[in-house]
């Protein structure tokens, strides 16, 4: 984790702006992540949301150390802040369309396509390059609070993946959250994290005449995931490095 950072995570709502009685009873609320016109939504407890936000901050910090530094700032808005040359740019809450007040957003989160598509739709190489460097706003909502970062696609993917794993882990232990059966990526059968596959339907699942993956490779990817989960929280970079001993 970053050395002298002040990771205040305030997840208490500043005001009772929208009501979700069901979720409150189960102590889960929607954790929403926006990036590049796509959205992913999970039902998360405070603890989970905290963890994910910390992971995101760490991910951003690590990547930014390698690339250029981002603006550091603190803001009155309750969100992650850090003294390191890394922090999310903390902007005022985005336009009302995505605001926590807006009930439309709740509707949208239930009915919209919850697949985060992070692949460019055209396959021009130079656009690949451009997009890699291009940063877009990554916005995380939870319970009336918002955190915003400038993130590249790579970073956003990484954060989403970490979040998915975090949710999956926790969900395995706890009970299932409210099911969102309308979404194509959240399955209501099992406590399951959103799939991160871009449209069209998963090419890698052994579905009807779909591409099947060789068993040996499948096994490798499962083990790779376990390795990453095992090195967390000491190292949450995408690629599993050595387990470092420094504690946060």
């Amino acid at each position, binding site marked *: 984790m970053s050395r002298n950072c002040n990771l205040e995570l305030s997840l208490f709502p500043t005001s009772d702006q929208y009501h979700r009685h069901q979720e409150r009873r189960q102590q889960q609320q929607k954790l929403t992540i926006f990036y590049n016109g796509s959205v992913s939504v999970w039902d998360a407890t405070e603890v989970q949301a905290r963890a994910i936000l910390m992971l995101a901050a760490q991910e951003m910090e690590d990547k930014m150390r390698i690339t250029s530094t981002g603006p550091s700032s603190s803001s009155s808005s309750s969100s992650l802040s850090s003294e390191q040359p890394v922090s999310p740019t903390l902007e005022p809450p985005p336009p009302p369309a995505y605001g926590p007040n807006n009930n439309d957003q709740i509707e949208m989160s239930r009915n919209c396509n919850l697949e985060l598509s*992070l*692949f460019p*739709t055209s*396959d021009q*190489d130079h656009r*690949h390059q451009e997009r*890699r460097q291009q940063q877009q706003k990554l916005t995380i909502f939870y319970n009336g609070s918002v955190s915003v970062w400038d993130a590249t*696609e*790579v970073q956003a*993917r*990484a954060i*989403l*993946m970490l979040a*998915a*794993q975090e949710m*999956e882990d926790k969900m395995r232990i706890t009970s299932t959250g409210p099911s969102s059966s309308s979404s194509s990526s959240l*399955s209501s*059968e*099992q406590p*399951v*994290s959103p*799939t*991160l*596959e*871009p*449209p*069209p*339907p*998963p*090419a*890698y*699942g*052994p*579905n*009807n*005449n*779909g*591409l*099947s*993956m*060789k*068993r*040996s*490779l*499948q*096994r*490798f*990817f*499962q*083990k*790779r*995931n376990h*390795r990453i989960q095992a090195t967390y929280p000491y190292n949450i970079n*995408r*690629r*599993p*490095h*050595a*387990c*470092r001993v420094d504690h946060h």
Partner: protein
Amino acid sequence: MEEENQNSKSNRTNCSSSMSDVVLGCVMPYIHDPRDRDAVSLVCRRWYELDALTRKHITIAFCYTTSPDRLRRRFKHLESLKLKGKPRAAMFNLIPEDWGGFVTPWVNEIAESFNCLKSLHFRRMIVTDSDLEVLAKSRGRVLQVFKLDKCSGFSTDGLLHVGRLCRQLRTLFLEESSILEKDGYWLHELALNNTVLETLNLYMTDLNKVRFEDLELIAKNCRNLVSVKISDCEILDLVRFFHTAAALEEFCGGSFNDMPDKYSAVTFPQKLCRLGLTYMGKNEMPIVFPFASLLKKLDLLYALLDTEDHCLLIQKCFNLEVLETRNVIGDRGLEVLASSCRRLKRLRIELGADAQGMEDEEGVVSQRGLIALAQGCLELEYMAVYVSDITNVALEHIGAHLRNLNDFRLVLLDREERITDLPLDNGVRSLLRQCKKLRRFALYLRPGGLTDVGLGYIGQYSINVRWMLLRYVGESDEGLLEFSKGCPSLQKLEMRGCCFTESALARAVMQLTSLRYLWVQGYRASSSNPGRDLSAMVRPFWNIELIPPRKVVVVNQVGEDVVVEQPAHILAYYSLAGPRTDFPNSVVPLDLVGLVAT
């Protein structure tokens, strides 16, 4: 004396040459190619018998085509046997685990009759601990090569018998087998009892309880140890092993769990030229650099490198002949490969798990990479690629430059919505026409990928192709029928996602003159009476089996259980042994005679 005269007389009348048996008996052992042997055995009875006495190796491409008994009656003195069981699709989790391919009847016959057998290779078959015990006790003293290749059904208890009793083993190969691991004693037994081991392969078996101390002991005792492939074992624990195994040329497996800088202390054996390090990342990669130029084979399938890492590493491996990796290599990596590795003979680019954002987003392979490859690596003989985009021009380049190709497999991923240039009719025609040495061919496309005309081209121009795997090719039955008028050498055909009806499939089978094995998943079954329209292919010695549609629980990449609907399979093959008698519940033999009669 008289008999001899009579024999030579009958030889003269039966055979064009007047060669005596003695001469023939000296010449015959030098004929190795199975097709030549096949021809020899058809000349006359005497030649058939001589062939049977002198044939050293048999591959039974599908175990249900014959029986252990028949094998014994013809080739009693066999020294080497290879048997294959489950359909290829089993490697992709498409075949029920208990489908079949049991080695037990074969093992029993081997134990009893095959006194000369030194080499045994089971591929995609079901093996039990008891089978291993029987084999070890009966043939352990003479067995030199033992391969359980993608097999299942046994545990390390069975391997204990092998370790204890097979003391002459030069090769023990278990790659990709599903083995129940109870402990690592079996390897300890092997280490204690064997001094001649040359090849040890536990790759992709998840046998993690093997002790590295036993590997060291094997390295110490077996001075001819040349190839070792293991499961996950910390590389730092293998330092002494690498030091001891002086003759080692090939190593795959291992694991990197410590700080990258610790690995700079690892030195590899001097002759090491075939390498694949599991979980190797960007920071560990430099340990390969000192001998990268010596590498002939590089396995990056289970490494953790991105596109840039690939470029860096491949650039240094200018003697590379074999490369296996995932599509994270990207077009850029292929361009580096094309300019650096002119001696490349085999290239395999597998599917990465980019669905999870784990792979480099630059890791896509398209026509750009293929064109560069075709222009740079002119010695390519084997090429298997997963691409995200493709054009006819790319295939034309392959046809124009890669004249040595004998095995070409192209899979078009479903990821991109729009493909630059479909259908691929002209490109495929160009490739097949020019790559005259092609024996194996696979084309995995999407609807619209190849028209009926294109499918007809495949039939027309695949003169020497013996095996084909096709998915989403053609548009209608017409295409299939046109296809089946050609393919003169096609022995084994596998198809998925076809739009063809049962009757078209049956008619195609009857038209494909060399066909002896057909596997199809995803076709237009007749709605009223599934299987009925296959009756057109009912004929003697031709077995037809169905695996009806079923729901399967599979684990996906995120580790979730997903219920998947799998469509029906048709499996049809020539057999001298009659229909199977060991069906599990998931497989249904088609009694078409009964159907036709009603």
